[in-house]
């Protein structure tokens, strides 16, 4: 017998909870949904484009009637639930329909607040909440001329703009003297007002509504100062109040909203609540992202998984108000304890402000150019110390290092549909927009899985997010603060690393059990990460799990598009000898290597080697004195050098020997992502040390150490770490830096995003300022090398892991 779930409310939050529940436990409940409105679930945020005429109502429906039928959900449209009998566990609708429940989900949303002024009940005075309101506005616009919108917040401005597009003469009356004061500061609001006035809207700021007058329908609005505004339609957009009447009548504890716990339960444990009707930890929410987070947690508990908690949401608002981009997050006003950095170009219609306290972002407000909103929000959530990037902060993320797409900030909304957004997967703007609207996508992850855009290298993520915001016409779901490692778990990377140490988890099965993994053996995302984390935590003890390594690392060569492999032997510091070259040439000829290529890492690459040939070719390379170049792994790759003092007239130190020594110390180590070094003999930097994870620039007085540089898709120049005097110090600082990276970064996080995430100040403290700590880190690195610095090719040439290289059987 299935349990019965009754949902009161057919809006976005409630139906998202049902969708999430169906993903987790589709057979658990017989579901019945009651909705006041005579419609299936639709996207309320997109009522604005329906009002302006840009969209039709059917285009904004999220779950049509067929969807409910397909999932066996009984939908009672246009039936208002008027009572809940908690003792006998039943709900009763106005028309007498009764539904019994084992679990009840309240998702009654909110009601528009109607100013308690005389005349508020006259025909022609409405809120802006549902499709019925939009229909009234559209009909009225055809017959009448003047509209007054009371309330100059987001909703009021959208209503005003829509009515204006439908041909009405609109005046907006707003109590404060700053428009959208919840999201904007005074200068940004001023720019917004000017822009809207240029379009034909009129504003009365500091306007107090006294009375609405009219005979059989509304005819005017009278303000406290005596002014009278002609009005054939009055839209009240002065705020929303959680719709808690039903809950209160049923005896559930309510304050401003229905009070719920972190598991979205009300004081009656059989009754859950999500959405705008809810009050959680004193907060109510009116933006969609927090509501979707609540829905996910609620579904988790309804499915009896019992492991999710809603801890409240830190919200950012990225909006398109009447076609203008706005972004706001956190405390953007500041006080005498904070400071602000401002960029304003009124002529270009750009205003950006970041509020800082102790070098950490507290809030931001942006008008006109919001491309970096998500980045500021991330920095704010992570509490990153931004002192290292202060001068460039307001110019945006692309200016920290040159972005792979150049530093053009494109206005995605004005791009042609054929513009390629994702270079790795060849996805154009049109395809992404079609997927968002056609498949009702709301989040970055959904866009990734449906279109592949931003799912490979990720450098177009900012553009894809901008497309989401502009297509959805309002806010969209930002990812929660602590992102789970993968779909197998709710735990984030840092939590898992901590648990491995605290709970002494030394094998993957032990970890899966202790952390209640949702799958029996993980997935292709978490297993390689866990394998690495366990390896770093227990050097010499943890048994490396080959089956949890990506193919390249498993077979110690790079797979190519046709299933053959590339072989790159190590050439220390990029310096070789005639006899080495001769050996390589002979081996290449012996095996008929189709292509010999010189790599960016100053090595030689044999391409086109069949898998079965690998052990043999390695045997020959091994005999000639070569070891694996690890060009295929999340490992230390190369140390590039220039010729330095030995030959070059500008060389200040022996960069080549320094590079060789670094390579001899670090080869063989596994890292969160590929790790590249270089040593340049002077500041001319011929070895390009300043785009390396660890780069050394020799100077007359010693060695400058640089960290966190990346070439490739998103170029980032290094941060200067410090200067040291001796080669031994270079080795010690490098080992320490490598070890912090290995112990603390997330798997697949290159040093560049890692340094930006945790801040240069932290790394300086661990590696430069704390001398004793540095020595300990270096010591731990050397210990791990005792077990890791083993040539994988030699072992396999002698027959180890034979099964990887030969087929099980040959037939016919």
């Amino acid at each position, binding site marked *: 017998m299935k349990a019965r779930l009754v949902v009161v409310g057919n809006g976005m939050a409630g139906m998202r909870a049902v969708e999430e529940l169906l993903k987790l436990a589709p057979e658990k409940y017989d579901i019945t949904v009651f909705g006041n409105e005579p419609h299936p679930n639709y996207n309320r945020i997109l009522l604005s484009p329906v009002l302006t005429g840009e969209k039709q109502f059917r285009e904004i429906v999220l779950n049509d009637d067929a969807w409910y039928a397909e999932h066996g959900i009984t939908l009672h449209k246009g039936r208002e639930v008027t009572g809940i009998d908690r003792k006998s566990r039943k709900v009763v609708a106005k028309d007498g329909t009764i539904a019994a429940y084992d679990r009840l989900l309240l998702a009654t949303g909110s009601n528009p607040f109607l100013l308690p002024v005389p005349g508020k009940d006259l025909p022609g005075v409405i809120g802006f909440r549902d499709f019925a309101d939009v229909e009234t506005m559209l009909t009225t616009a055809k017959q009448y001329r003047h509209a007054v919108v009371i309330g100059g917040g987001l909703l009021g401005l959208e209503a005003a703009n829509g009515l204006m597009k439908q041909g009405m003469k609109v005046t907006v009356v707003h109590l404060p003297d700053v428009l959208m004061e919840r999201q904007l500061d005074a200068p940004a609001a001023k720019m917004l007002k000017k822009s809207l006035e240029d379009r034909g809207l009129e504003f009365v700021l500091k306007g107090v509504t006294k009375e609405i007058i009219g005979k059989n329908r509304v005819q005017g609005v009278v303000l406290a100062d005596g002014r009278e505004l002609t009005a054939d339609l009055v839209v009240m957009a002065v705020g929303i109040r959680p719709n808690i009447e039903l809950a209160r009548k049923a005896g559930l504890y309510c304050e401003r909203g229905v009070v719920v716990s972190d598991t979205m339960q009300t004081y009656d444990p059989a009754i859950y609540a999500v959405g705008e009707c809810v009050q959680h930890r004193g907060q109510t929410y009116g933006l969609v992202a927090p509501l979707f987070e609540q829905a996910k947690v609620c579904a988790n508990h309804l499915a009896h998984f019992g492991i999710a908690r809603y801890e409240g949401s830190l919200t950012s608002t990225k909006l398109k108000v009447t076609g203008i981009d706005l972004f706001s997050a956190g405390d953007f006003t500041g006080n005498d304890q904070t400071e602000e950095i401002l960029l304003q170009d009124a002529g270009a219609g750009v205003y950006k402000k970041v509020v800082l306290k102790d070098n950490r972002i507290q809030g931001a407000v942006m008008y006109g150019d919001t491309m970096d909103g998500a980045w500021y929000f991330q920095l704010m959530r992570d509490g990153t110390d931004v002192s290292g990037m202060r001068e460039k902060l307001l110019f945006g993320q692309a200016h920290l290092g040159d972005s792979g797409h150049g530093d053009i900030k494109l206005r995605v909304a004005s791009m042609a549909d054929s513009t390629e957004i994702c270079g790795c997967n060849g996805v154009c703007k049109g395809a992404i927009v079609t997927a968002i609207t056609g498949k009702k996508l709301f989040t970055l992850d959904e866009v990734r*899985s*449906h279109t592949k855009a931003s799912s490979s290298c990720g450098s177009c993520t900012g553009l894809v997010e901008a497309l989401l915001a502009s297509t959805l016409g309002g806010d969209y779901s930002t990812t929660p603060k602590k992102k789970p490692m993968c779909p197998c778990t709710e735990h984030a990377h840092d939590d898992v690393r901590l648990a491995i140490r605290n709970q002494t988890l030394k094998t993957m099965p032990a970890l899966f059990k202790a952390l209640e993994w949702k*799958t*029996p*053996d*993980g*997935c*292709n995302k978490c*297993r*390689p990460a866990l394998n690495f984390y366990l390896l770093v935590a227990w050097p010499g003890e943890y048994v490396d799990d*080959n*089956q*949890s*390594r*990506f*193919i*390249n690392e*498993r*077979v110690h060569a790079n*797979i190519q*598009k046709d*299933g053959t492999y590339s072989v790159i032997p190590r050439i220390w510091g990029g310096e070789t000898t005639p006899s080495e070259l001769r050996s390589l040439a002979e081996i290449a000829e012996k095996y008929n290597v189709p292509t010999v290529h010189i790599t960016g890492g100053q090595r030689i690459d044999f391409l086109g080697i069949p898998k079965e040939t690998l052990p043999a070719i390695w045997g020959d390379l091994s005999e000639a004195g070569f070891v694996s170049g690890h060009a295929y792994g999340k490992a230390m790759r190369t140390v590039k050098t220039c010729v330095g003092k030995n030959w070059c007239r500008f060389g200040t130190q022996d960069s080549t020997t320094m590079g060789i020594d670094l390579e001899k110390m670090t080869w063989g180590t596994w890292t969160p992502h590929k790790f590249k070094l270089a040593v340049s003999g002077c500041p001319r930097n011929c070895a390009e040390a300043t785009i390396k994870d660890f780069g050394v620039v020799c100077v007359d007085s010693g060695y400058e150490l640089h960290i966190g540089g990346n070439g490739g898709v998103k170029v980032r120049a290094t941060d200067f770490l410090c200067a040291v005097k001796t080669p031994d110090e270079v080795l010690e600082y490098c080992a320490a830096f490598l070890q912090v990276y290995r112990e603390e970064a997330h798997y697949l996080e290159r040093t560049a995003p890692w340094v930006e995430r945790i801040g240069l100040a932290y790394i300086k403290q661990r590696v430069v300022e704390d001398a004793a700590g540095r020595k300990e880190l270096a010591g731990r690195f050397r210990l791990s090398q005792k077990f890791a610095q083993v040539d994988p090719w030699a072992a396999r040439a002698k027959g180890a892991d034979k*099964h990887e290289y030969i*087929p*099980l*059987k*040959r*037939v*016919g």
Partner: protein
Amino acid sequence: MSAVKMKTQSDWIEIGTLDDIPRQGARVVKRFDGDIAVFRTLDDSVFALRDKCPHKGGPLSQGIVHGNKVACPLHDWKINLDTGIAVEPDEGCAARFPVRLEGGKVFLSLTPEDGCPQGTA
């Protein structure tokens, strides 16, 4: 039009033992007309698919095996081992081959199951 082939005794061959296949891994049976990947999951079940990803022909045998799925090493498409069908929203399939375990020995049929139109080549 496909001729219905009787799965005669001669279509089944012994390819090795269960232990020849790494757990959560695969081995390859090489054939002139296309390799077959033989998988072993965590619970010692065996599956066999054409060793060719429906996306761009990548070698499924080289992917990471998790649950009853494998992730293609080239572009990360996930393929269900029991059906050969790609995990949504990707679309496509790799042909399935009957495979069974008998007394620790693995037997494979060289005639693919029906149901994967592009997967027989």
